[in-house]
């Protein structure tokens, strides 16, 4: 469905008496969703609807999962439209027949990647047409008018008209090809923190997440999936399950066994009482076997991801050689709201209520399963209790629709936490061979990095999985000879997009190894990086900012050390300094200083909370995150063996945002990657021991 229309093709205006001015701006697909691997998508649409009663409705075609799009995206439109942000109404878009472009909410792409400009143009276009309508009515030049808070003013004659009175007239004007956008100095909302539109309902408990959907006559369901990846149900006995009061039905679905009951607890109890014989297929590996299989794959050359200069030749010239092996584990998303979806399948119509990052993917899945056409499948998007990439997949949608096809009332499917943890699409485990050659002054001449990982995007043996090498192939340092290749591993363990994707693992490796090199060259790790980033002013700037604000190089409390790391991710630059100490073989994280340049900031409060949240997310992974595989199944099952950072472990996190009017970059992900290496580099400074696999183990911390 990928098409590249010019913007003009998409601007359409319609008006009907009493309905008002409806300007739709379908936002064209612009570039591949590099980070998130979403192919052939459109950028999001936005609809502005102004009614004669001055009601302004802005449609939100992205999923709200805590990243603040429900406030930040309407802010952009309201800014250029010149309406009161506190008075607009927000409509969450359904995936149905309307064309909103891609509603996929991934890759920190709700604002960046052109959406920013097009949302502004959507607002400015409407504003210009409203001004033209007022000017015509008054017989004055449009340039002599101004707008504010949903009204057009002609100051010299002291006249004004509200937008609502101009809706029908405005629709008769031509759509301006290039609407005048505000100069950043004129911004009223953008760059300033305003009250988040949805905070009060979240605090009152009234927000409806997917799991909270309630429909008349609704039943409840859960699914037991085969514990071993690639396995299936051979046979089952539901005698005991059916004895559980409230259990109505037990049946096979494509991905497992479904239990339908009159409430969630009965469904869970029924599921526990099932006797199931599994056909376990042929996958029975342990984590160690997987690591060994990666090691074997790493012996052969992979698909080239980057080739600058001649690494082999440069290595020969080098005075010093270094090499290391780095590994990272599988990681679960562990969103606080487990996977769930509510579906109602009628004879010729299907409706879903889904906490999904991919409403159109959910719609397509339901169309496939029911055989219904697009207009017969409607997906309502609820609030998401975290997304983190997990909810871009439609496996839980499939469960839900298949169940609803077997029941004649609406059914709410809820996975248990255990099912959620053991049937995720995990952040890939990877194995990395990395080497460098330095000259006599300690400058790197050559860098060679081989990434072994399962692909996030399918493809064939010779396909480069760009997500797997993101953060490795775009190493920012000025090194004349760089070679990065990718070896593909095909395993039954499902892998997927996990907040910040490739850089979440590769930055740990590259930023640790550059630290190794700096120490080998007997240089300060901050100064060493600085020299190699001379041609990258944005990265250099955040690196220097983080160093300055952290007091890098100054005297620290006894036992405290610092580590630094920097990354370019999702169009933003982020540097972090971690201050730690080791106490009784435990790492204490005292402080994380984070400098972020994400271009023009829309809402500083949201960016700050996203950045702190990213640090917590990255720390949780560095300290605890590990999904182990044993005999083909996931060992961990709940938060006791897949722990999350708690409030008592929360370090002081300082966030410094670079003041910028540049094109916005991503804000929800770029602060994830630098956390782990900043911490492990600080651990090296304390112990002299280099941590080359995550999570950090206490045995790695003994001095």
């Amino acid at each position: 469905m990928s098409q590249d229309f010019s913007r003009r093709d998409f601007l359409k205006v319609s008006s009907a008496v009493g309905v008002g001015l409806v300007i739709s701006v379908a936002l064209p697909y612009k570039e591949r969703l590099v980070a998130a691997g979403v192919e052939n998508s459109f950028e999001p649409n936005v609809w502005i609807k102004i009614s004669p009663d001055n009601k302004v409705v802005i449609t939100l075609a992205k999923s709200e999962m805590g990243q603040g799009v429900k406030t930040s995206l309407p802010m952009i439109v309201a800014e250029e439209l010149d309406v009161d942000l506190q008075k607009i109404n927000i409509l969450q878009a359904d995936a149905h027949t309307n064309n909103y472009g891609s509603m996929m909410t991934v890759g920190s792409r709700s604002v960046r990647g052109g959406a920013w400009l097009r949302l502004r143009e959507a607002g400015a276009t409407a504003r210009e047409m409203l001004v033209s309508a007022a000017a015509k009515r008054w017989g004055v030049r449009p340039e002599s008018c101004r707008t504010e808070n949903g009204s057009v003013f002609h100051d010299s004659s002291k006249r004004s008209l509200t937008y609502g009175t101009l809706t029908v007239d405005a629709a008769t004007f031509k759509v301006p090809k290039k609407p005048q956008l505000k100069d950043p100095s004129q911004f009223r909302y953008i760059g300033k923190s305003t009250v988040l539109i949805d905070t009060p309902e979240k605090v009152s408990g009234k927000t409806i997440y997917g799991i909270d959907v309630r429909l008349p006559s609704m039943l409840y369901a859960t699914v037991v999936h085969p514990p071993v990846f690639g396995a299936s149900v051979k046979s089952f006995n539901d005698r005991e399950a059916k004895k559980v009061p409230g259990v109505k039905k037990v049946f096979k679905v494509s991905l497992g066994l479904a239990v339908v009951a009159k409430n969630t607890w009965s469904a869970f109890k029924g599921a526990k009482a099932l006797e199931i014989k599994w056909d376990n297929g042929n996958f029975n590996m342990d984590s160690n076997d997987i690591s060994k299989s990666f090691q074997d794959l790493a012996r052969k050359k992979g698909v080239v991801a980057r080739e600058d200069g001649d690494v082999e030749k440069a290595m020969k010239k080098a005075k010093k050689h270094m090499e290391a092996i780095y590994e990272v584990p599988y990681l679960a998303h562990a969103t606080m709201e487990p996977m769930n979806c509510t579906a109602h399948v009628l004879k010729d119509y299907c409706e879903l209520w889904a906490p999904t990052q991919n409403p159109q993917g959910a719609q397509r899945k339901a169309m496939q399963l029911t055989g219904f056409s697009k207009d017969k499948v409607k997906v309502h998007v609820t609030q998401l209790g975290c997304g983190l990439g997990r909810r871009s997949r439609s496996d839980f949608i499939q469960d839900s629709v298949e169940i609803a096809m077997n029941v004649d009332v609406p059914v709410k499917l809820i996975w248990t936490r255990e099912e959620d943890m053991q049937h995720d699409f995990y952040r890939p485990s990877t194995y990395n061979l990395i080497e460098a050659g330095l000259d006599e002054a300690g400058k790197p001449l050559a860098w060679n990095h081989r990434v072994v990982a399962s692909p996030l995007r399918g493809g064939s043996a010779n396909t480069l999985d760009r997500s797997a090498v993101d953060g490795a192939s775009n190493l920012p340092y000025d090194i004349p000879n760089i070679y990065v290749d990718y070896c593909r591993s095909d395993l039954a363990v499902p892998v997927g997009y996990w907040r910040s994707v490739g850089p979440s693992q590769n930055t740990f490796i590259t930023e640790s190894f550059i630290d190794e090199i700096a120490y080998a060259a007997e240089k300060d790790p901050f100064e060493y990086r600085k020299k190699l980033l001379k041609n990258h002013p944005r990265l250099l700037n955040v690196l220097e900012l983080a160093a300055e604000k952290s007091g890098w190089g100054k005297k620290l409390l006894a036992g405290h050390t610092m580590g630094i790391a920097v990354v370019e991710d999702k169009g933003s630059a982020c540097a972090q300094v971690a201050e730690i100490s080791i106490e009784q073989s435990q790492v204490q994280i005292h402080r994380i200083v984070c400098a972020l340049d994400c271009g023009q900031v829309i809402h500083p409060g949201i960016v700050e909370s996203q950045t702190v949240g990213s640090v917590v997310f990255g720390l949780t992974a560095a300290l605890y995150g590990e999904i182990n595989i044993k005999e083909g199944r996931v060992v961990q099952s709940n938060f006791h063996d897949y722990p999350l950072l708690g409030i008592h472990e929360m370090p002081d996190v300082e966030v410094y945002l670079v003041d910028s009017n540049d094109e916005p970059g991503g804000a929800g992900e770029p602060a994830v990657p630098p956390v782990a290496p900043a911490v492990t580099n600080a651990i090296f400074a304390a112990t002299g021991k280099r941590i080359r696999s995550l999570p950090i183990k206490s045995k790695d911390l003994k001095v």
Partner: protein
Amino acid sequence: MPKFTLRINKKTHRINIDADTPLLWVLRDELGYTGTKYGCGRGFCGACTIHVDGEATRSCMTAVDNVDGAEITTIEGLSIDNSHPIQKSWISEEVPQCGYCQPGQIMTAAALLDRNADPDDEDIDSAMKMNLCRCGTYDRIRKAIHLAAKEQK
């Protein structure tokens, strides 16, 4: 099926349900108090925290027959208009991101303030450390609790 009398948010509900049913599912599925969330089902995460006779309690681990006649408060009953000091400070500090764990955080924090009008950081840590937040809102939670304590004085 056994009958229970539940006092929830100052209202009396009579229901027939299996005695081992966790209060969480009674609240959510039978009575429609969906502000109380399911996170782990085993008392690890705190998303299901409510008050039973004023004490912060994990509703996923509390069988309905243990609370027959007890005074239960859910997030919906903490106040009807976000006027509880903790809710006010949660709004002014903009604590929630996705918000899913926040009813549990708020109920735990409200119970803390009830028994300790001026908690220090250590008190906050020990009361709140079993309430997990995947979005990482902990620093704002801490600020909001301090703010609520200050405002309450």
